[in-house]
């Protein structure tokens, strides 16, 4: 998408005074100030105070941040975030680009676009669910006594592998990772297939005439041509992974212990469960900073790497 700023310059009409359009920004600006800027400022202030949710916040400077730096739960939550970046960004992108290429460049030419469209819709379906609903569904599948996972293991004679999937700190994070991959693949498949449809078919035809096999075409053409899409997907899904909340809230509440704790849930529980508002605000501020730095960093990396590529 081209931003407004890069649109061709338009000569301002002489009939029309400059300015005067500012009035139209007022509703958006008031709303944005009230819902984003002021609350974010208040959050930064709260992070510098000790506040139990009642009474007056007491200013304590950077004490909350010092406490954070020494809090193993805080560090555990960011380590888990890295795992979830793999679950929501890296793995779905890798699988998605491959599935999209197979559907687009292997299934569609041989069996028709109808077959590939239906399969794409099947991969996409988890994306239409509210994440809370997906969480309830998987919570039931993982239930230890009568859950689907263990019942199926029993019925195929592998009862010895029964697990308390979400209740065991060794398996819980992988159980959550599995759900996140299931949720995310559809997003990447759909975006990459949309990307492939803008690639000039002549490229593939020329490569095929030159005797390039499917894997060669995939490596040389698909991966190259999809670079802009891959960059966008990695940025948006990494940001989403750092923010992940609903699946954790529904599936594990960060537990057992801190084995699935993430920064967003840690700050939520500091606010509303343990009433350490200042501490929760500090976690949220750090998270906001980390996300902004990573998003801007990825964006810069992407513009540098795709320069001369898109145009």
């Amino acid at each position, binding site marked *: 998408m081209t931003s407004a700023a890069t649109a061709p310059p338009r000569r301002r009409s002489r009939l029309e005074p400059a300015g005067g359009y500012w009035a*139209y920004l007022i509703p958006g600006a008031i709303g*944005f100030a009230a819902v984003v800027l002021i609350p974010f400022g208040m959050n930064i202030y709260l992070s510098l105070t000790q506040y139990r949710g009642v009474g007056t916040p007491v200013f304590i400077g950077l004490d909350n941040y010092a406490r954070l730096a020494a809090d193993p739960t805080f560090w555990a939550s960011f380590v888990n975030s890295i795992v979830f970046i793999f679950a929501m960004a890296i793995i779905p992108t890798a699988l998605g680009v491959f599935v999209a290429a197979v559907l687009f460049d292997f299934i569609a030419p041989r069996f028709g676009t109808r077959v590939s469209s239906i399969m794409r819709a099947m991969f996409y379906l988890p994306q239409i669910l509210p*994440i809370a609903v997906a969480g309830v569904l998987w919570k*039931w599948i993982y239930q230890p006594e009568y859950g689907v996972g263990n019942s199926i293991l029993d019925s195929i004679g592998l009862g010895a592998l029964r697990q308390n999937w979400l209740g065991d700190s060794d398996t819980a994070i992988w159980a959550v990772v599995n759900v996140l991959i299931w949720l995310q*693949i559809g997003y990447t498949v759909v975006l990459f297939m949309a990307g492939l449809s803008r690639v000039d078919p002549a490229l593939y035809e020329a490569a095929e005439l030159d005797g390039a096999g499917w894997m060669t075409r995939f490596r040389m053409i698909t991966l190259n041509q999809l670079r802009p899409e891959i960059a966008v997907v990695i940025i948006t899904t990494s*940001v*989403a992974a750092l923010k992940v909340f609903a699946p954790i809230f529904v599936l594990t509440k960060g537990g057992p212990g801190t084995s699935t704790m993430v920064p967003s849930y840690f700050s939520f529980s500091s606010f509303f469960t343990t009433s350490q508002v200042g501490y929760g605000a500090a976690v949220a501020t750090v998270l906001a900073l980390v996300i902004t730095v990573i998003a801007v960093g990825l964006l810069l990396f992407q513009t540098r790497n795709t320069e001369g590529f898109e145009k």
Partner: protein
Amino acid sequence: MTVIKPGRAPESALLPPATGAPVPRPKKRRGSRSRRGVSGWVVLVVMAVCALLMLFPFWLALINAFKPAEEYLQTGPTSLPTTLDFSALVAFWQSVDFNQKLVNSVVISGSVALIAAAISLVSAFAIGIGRVKGRVWILAIFMLAFTIPQEALVYPLFILTRELGLYDTQLGVIIILSVLQSAFGTYMLASILGAFPPEVLEAARIDGASRFQILTRIVFPLTRPTLAVLITFFFIWTWNDFFLPLVLLPSADNQTVSVALGALSGQYTSDPTSLAAASLAGILPALIFFLLFQRTLMRGVNLGAVK
């Protein structure tokens, strides 16, 4: 979940490109049967199995939602139910007053979609058509709404809504979500309006149209298809939103479908089929929207792909 739902693909991108999309691939180009071969069928079967695995959880919810609990315990989760038992679904529906949740979700999502689209249009009008000074910076500030996690806004919003008497009211959530979503809408519409044909605007000005008339008589009608797509996305995103409604709408009477289902976790552990029934109740509206909105979303293919 954020304003942009970065992890979610625009539903539109799922649909086949509208006619006239860039370089449509000739469908029958290499579609000869002879090219299918054994390896072709093997790949097809492998892909079909993967695709079916993606649907397996949905299938489990469907078949077990109607299975009597005793039968579930005897024959397990993968057998088809021998009788259709609606009791788990009915029990869930009544215990959470699901009709009420559906109404709440429709009211909140519908209001947010319309208000957010209106704010987006007006702001984008100033940025894209009015080309106000510093518009790049204005858009950059709006981008903050993409990166700031809602956790960094939620406690102040909790304090402010309590002060203003908007806590635990649908109005409060509607205002907040409208503003957050309009940041995305503004960003998207501003770039579209930036490419608005200048001759049309010029002609209108020569005819003496005021800025407001240009907005309502020219820009609005011409961007209506884009607005329809935005409204659809806003509706679905709000429907699926979880975090802010969870915090700001605590009472059962105001809750949305998403929050009501999310709050189920921890309950219902004794009855093996009730969670399947609850999941199915949550899946159905999402599936219905998807089918209903397909036509509108078809027009948004261009909005969909790479932003």
